[in-house]
């Protein structure tokens, strides 16, 4: 904002204050999920005229959803799984043991950190039975989710 030609006549310190005040107001409104009437009342108390209140509220309304998404994404959470890849292999031999003949799955869970630092993916191997166990448990979780949303 300090580089905006329209604002160059205003004292930069005042500009900063205005910016900070506006930002605080918007963030608080967003955090509390305040509706338009609450915001209007608040701004009236601050002695802003009708025209300005209306302008502010319209702009706020336009960006409300984006603001909520942004605020909702701040915060810590465990590593978030975004995708899964798998590989099915059939082992014939290794240097310790020949003729092993064993199928196995290699599963990789792609994960994301909420702090947007990258994190190595979680990989593990499993037999068919173990994969069946895993899928069974995931299905249980999904069924519970369905039941919970129906309540």
């Amino acid at each position, binding site marked *: 904002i300090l580089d905006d030609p329209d604002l160059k006549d205003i004292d930069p310190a005042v500009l900063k204050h205005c910016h900070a005040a506006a930002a605080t107001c918007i963030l608080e409104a*967003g*955090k*509390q*999920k305040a509706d338009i009437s609450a915001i209007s009342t608040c701004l009236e108390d601050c002695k802003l005229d009708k025209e300005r209140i209306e302008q502010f509220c319209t702009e706020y309304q336009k960006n409300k959803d984006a603001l*909520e998404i942004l*605020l*909702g994404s*701040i*915060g810590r*959470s*465990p*590593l*978030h*799984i*975004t*995708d*899964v*890849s*798998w590989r*099915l292999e*059939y082992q*014939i031999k*290794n*240097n*310790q*043991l*020949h*003729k*092993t*003949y064993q*199928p196995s*799955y*290699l*599963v990789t*869970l792609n*994960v994301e950190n909420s702090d947007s630092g990258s994190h190595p993916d*979680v*990989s*593990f*191997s*499993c037999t*068919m039975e*173990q*994969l*069946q*166990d*895993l*899928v069974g*448990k*995931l*299905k*249980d*979780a*999904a069924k*519970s*989710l369905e039941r*919970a*949303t129906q309540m």
Partner: protein
Amino acid sequence: KLNIGVDTIQHGVEGLVYLLTESSKLMASIPFLDFQDSIHVLGFSDELNKSLLQLYLDNRKEIRSILGELAPRLPSYHSLEWRLDVQLATRSLRQQIKTAVTMKLHLNQNEDQTAQVLQTDPATLLHLIQQLEQALGEMKMNHCRRIVRNMK
């Protein structure tokens, strides 16, 4: 008790171990004949050959399973715990309803057990299930069955 030098016994034991592990590793497809042929070369008495063969047959399975543990491995699946969470509010945003599935994945790596806490949303959960079911389905496909059948 045997009145032989320590070195001799050590060599004897090492020799036996080598014989048994190599035989178990290669798992001669015709156990009796191949094993017998191999040790015949060593020039021991018939009685000794028979005892060695018996020793091999008795311990073969156990030796193979122990050798199997020595191969290079990735962490392997042990189990999974899960729970449903609903996030209602955070410091930055009040009045939310954010569902998530939180899981604890237990893995084994070389006798250590690790547990990792992971989370996912309902949509990704369904995607995971679909992908992994497809993976399971592969084993039943003709391609895999043919390979398993023909490589024995």
